[in-house]
């Protein structure tokens, strides 16, 4: 298998109360093209930092060393971009990527390295209005020189669709904007594409949903919209960061099924970030276990679940309380 992203020596630090806190420590990991890879960990494990680093979404204040090498076929899509639409600070604008050779040697990112100064603006479909434009832009300059573009090459689904969707824009327009910016479609074409995407994510009555505002949708429906926006430009990589954690069990299972299906249909690579090892095991081909910023174990799902090598992986598995777990009441003598 070829690595879509090859992560080497990735270390990310944040400054907190004057101290440097290492969120990721010397991470080495290959994301294989076409695989479903789960990143598992508890709070403070660095799993979300890793997702943000891969997407180029780390805040400007983050201290990054190491590299992520990408092997990504050049997008088949037209890149004639429209000027910013209604909300200039959040709308996708011109995006040019330097040194992005089709199928040739992997393009390399080395954080802090200087290169030619192409202006890259955030192409963050589902993040409209919530990104600190400057932070992202600086971040992407860091990653310049052949890095995939968020929104076009990478789709990102966050935990809370209420904060990732623009509350005052109809959801159809939010999806259409991504398609228009990255696929060079006209507005009518983009809206048509949005309607098809809403069908694909199984929103009841897509025609009506196009004109709905986020607050008119349920949590599960909003997450479906966020997924539609994330895949609108046909990204190679879909990152779902705790994308089902705020949903109830039944909706979570539906969204997991939907993600599995969309990833298979579009041939996307999936990075599934979760605290729930059981949920991850249902979806992933491989599982990477993180703790305190370090990768502690990586392997095929069956091996991680059935024959974990690291004590921490075993502890995570033991802590899972499934439907077949021995009731705690029996253990503590509280059951008559």
């Amino acid at each position, binding site marked *: 298998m070829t690595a879509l992203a090859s992560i080497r020596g990735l270390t990310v630090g944040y400054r907190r109360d004057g101290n440097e806190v290492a969120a990721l420590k010397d991470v080495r990991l290959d994301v294989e093209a076409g695989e479903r890879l789960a990143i598992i960990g508890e709070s403070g494990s660095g799993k979300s930092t890793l997702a943000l680093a891969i997407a180029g979404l780390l805040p400007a204040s983050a201290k990054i060393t190491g590299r992520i090498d990408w092997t990504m076929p050049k997008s088949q899509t037209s890149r004639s971009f429209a000027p910013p639409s209604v909300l200039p600070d959040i709308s996708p604008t011109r995006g040019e990527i330097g040194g992005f050779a089709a199928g040739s040697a992997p393009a390399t990112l080395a954080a802090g390295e200087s290169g030619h100064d192409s202006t890259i603006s955030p192409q963050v479909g589902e993040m409209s209005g919530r990104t600190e434009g400057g932070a992202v832009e600086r971040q992407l300059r860091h990653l310049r020189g052949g890095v995939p573009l968020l929104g076009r090459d990478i789709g990102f689904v966050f935990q809370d669709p209420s904060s990732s969707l623009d509350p005052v824009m109809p959801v159809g327009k939010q999806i259409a904007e991504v398609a228009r910016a990255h696929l060079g479609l006209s507005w009518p074409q983009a809206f048509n594409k949005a309607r098809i995407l809403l069908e694909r994510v199984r929103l009841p009555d897509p025609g009506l949903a196009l004109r709905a505002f986020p607050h008119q949708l349920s949590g599960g429906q909003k997450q479906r919209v966020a997924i539609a926006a994330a895949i609108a430009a046909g990204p190679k990589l879909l990152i779902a960061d705790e994308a089902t954690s705020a949903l109830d*069990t039944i909706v979570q299972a539906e969204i997991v099924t939907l993600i599995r299906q969309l990833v298979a249909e579009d041939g996307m690579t999936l990075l599934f970030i979760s605290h729930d090892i059981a949920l991850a095991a249902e979806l992933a081909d491989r599982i990477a276990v993180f703790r305190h910023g370090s990768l502690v174990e990586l392997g095929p799902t*069956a091996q991680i679940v059935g024959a974990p090598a690291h004590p921490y992986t075993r502890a995570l598995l033991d802590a899972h309380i499934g439907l077949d777990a021995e*009731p705690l009441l029996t253990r503590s003598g509280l059951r008559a």
Partner: protein
Amino acid sequence: MSLLAVSNLTKRYRRGGKAVAAADDVSFHIDPGETLALAGPSGSGKSTIARLVLRLIEPDAGRIAFEGEDFMALGGAALRARRARLQMVFQDPLAAFNPRATVARVLDDPLRIHRIASRSERPRQIAALLERVGLTADLAPRAIHEISGGQRQRVAIARAIATKPSLIVLDEAVSALDVSVRGQILDLLLDLQRQERIAYLFISHDLGIVRAIAHRVILLDAGRIAEAGDARAVIDAPRSVIGKALVAAAPRLDRSRS
């Protein structure tokens, strides 16, 4: 006699011009020292019922009897006094407490308000409460926002037991915790139940945890009781549509494969 008896509880909200029943003719009881779980999907009425039982919101119809008293008839000082016996722990203690308050302050409030300990006795009581929930007394001067999520939830439990309650409503109280911490908090809750005979109304969307910790379960769907009974019996063989759907949706970890 039941500790808590709820009869025909009904609460409707208006949403988009339509009346939606968040609780629709719900009746149940809890015995002393028992854990009753309320489980169901989002919007099934779990939290509404918890809030009705706590009288944080008022029902449109129905009765609540607590410790043999008509809980609905209480008001003012009588209700506040009774609240000492009926406590609550929510999902996010950071949202429940003033984040800048110290641990000592959070525990001092109930001791003072319910006149459980005099000013001079309170520091010792606070230390005893912290130790009771597996924390050390040196945590007392720390701010709520400084301590970890697991420590905060232990402080929330210490605050709840400070007034010697007979019933604690636990609304998704372990849902936001890391799995390694979650097990410890569940053990603490069981230990307190065994020692103090506290009953729990345990609200959760996680059937695995419900099956592990509850004696009985009520499965809710759109504000109505869909199914109720022994927690293991119901979850091992659900009969209702919602029960079957919840069980089918629970992630399974097959550790035998490799």
